[in-house]
């Protein structure tokens, strides 16, 4: 799994999606979430996305700042406003809704 360090701020323009995926160790759920995310980004955001991985087991102090409870949690940091999607991102439709790439078709199931 590739880790982008937090120390290198990526160069972003307004169109770029800055995404941060919070995981806790390399669990199957987290690996699945990363793979799903990567695929969705390649399909819908090719060339204009940037993914940071944050492993909370290594950086536990970061859980507080972004109000992380569930793992995995995907946070869309840019464009604003901030969005959060929790789970292994296995439902592409809902990920797209969560990232504001699709108009919401809300249902509670």
């Amino acid at each position, binding site marked *: 799994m590739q880790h982008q360090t937090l120390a290198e701020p990526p160069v972003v323009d307004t169109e770029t999606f800055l995404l941060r995926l919070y995981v806790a160790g390399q669990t199957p759920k987290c690996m699945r979430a990363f793979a799903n995310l990567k695929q969705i980004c390649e399909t819908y955001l090719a060339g204009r996305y940037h993914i940071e991985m944050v492993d909370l087991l290594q950086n536990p102090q970061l859980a507080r700042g972004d109000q992380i409870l569930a793992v995995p949690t995907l946070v869309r940091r840019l464009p604003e406003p901030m969005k*959060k999607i929790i*789970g292994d991102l296995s439902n592409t439709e809902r990920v797209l809704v969560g990232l504001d790439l699709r108009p919401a078709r809300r249902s509670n199931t």
Partner: protein
Amino acid sequence: MTANQELAKSPSGIQGLDEITNGGLPRGRPTLICGGAGSGKTLLAASFLLNGVVQFDEPGILMTFEETGEELASDLASLGYDLGKLVREGKLIVDYVRVERSEIEETGEYDLEGLFVRLEYAVSSIGAKRIVLDTIESLFAGLSNPGILRAELRRLFRWLKDKGLTAVLTGERGESGLTRQGLEEYVSDAVILLDHRVQEQVSTRRLRIVKYRGSHHGTNEYPFLIDREGLSVLPVTSLGLTHPAIEERVSTGVTRLDDMLSGRGYYRGSTVLLSGTAGTGKTSLAAHFVEAACQRGERCLYFLFEESPQQLMRNMRSIGINLQPWVDRGLLQFHADRPSRFGLETHLAAMQRAVRDFQPAVTVADPVTNLLTVGTQNDVRSMLTRVIDYIKSQGITGLFTSLTPGSKELEETDAGISSLMDTWVVLFINEDNRKRRRWLSVLKSRGMAHSNSVREFILTDHGLQVLDAEAAGQTRLGGV
């Protein structure tokens, strides 16, 4: 653990609570505090935590799901806790967990490892011993998968126990169970229920220990009080009849009344009832007693349920008793409260707290019958029983005045409370030859030979004076 071995406890530092729990909450285990909105759950939980930090050197974590750190800090500052200072000193961590369903999209499997990471990090960074989760049920509103939540809650409770943390969780009272989400299923060690009732515009807070595994505990509903000094629970039900019987006597402040009580006045640490219709001189007699106590250098606490202290002192000056100097010297303290201001339990709580703080030798409650406006005779009787238990256990002499309604039989109306009293003095007015004359009589006085005569007395500008038995001709009043 053997059956005889008492569970290890973490003292709460909350007045009264440690008494009814025999030492505090179960150490290293979770306790659930439940109650309706505004019942004082957060305050009780936070007091346990902050007292742990301040008094028992046990660092703590306050994880709040409802209020932000700033809101909590200002709530608790009014009770004298400086959260900011404790945080800076590295003894406390306040973590506000925000879960807003509308901001979170859920897709696929997840767990709450993020919450565990936060807790673990907080616990290890200050070496926390106590933790409060207020209220974890908010997670159910914020996340839509109850199956995951329940599994994670089970894991959380196991985790808390494995870490040896003394945890307090709060939960909102549910319609069918103790809490909305059935948190009581997970907490098997101790459950405390809080209740805030308003009856006839009078509010009363109560606390009950529903469950405390492996420990003896009081099973009653205990009144508790929240005021600027924080929270206190009142373990006031009868401590058993183990009051010391003191031989020492204290003057009534009226020499001839002392004479009627085998020459030496009331027993110290006993209870005295002064009853009579309006204007008979009950308060005057009480004021004599107070003055005598202050002259001996003893502290007096005077509860007023009708007049203001100024009014009482002015009236007493007219019969030559000046109480102001004793107030100035700190020997006499007044507590004036309208009975309707709060419920009996709260009055009881306030009285107990005042006694505890002032440590008087003598207390006066004038007139206790005014409490009947906020409770039935039975309620008042039960409350007074507890007041009396408390002051007797402290060796305090308690004097109570009781207003007898003019229309009722004198000895009947006071029957409810008179049995609680060691000495009962009755005052009354009798119209004789178009002149109103005052009389007093000792109806009973346990443990001493007392006069059974009815004696006339007058109120003069230098006090209450009991007249010579011969001069009064009391025989004519034999039938009264």
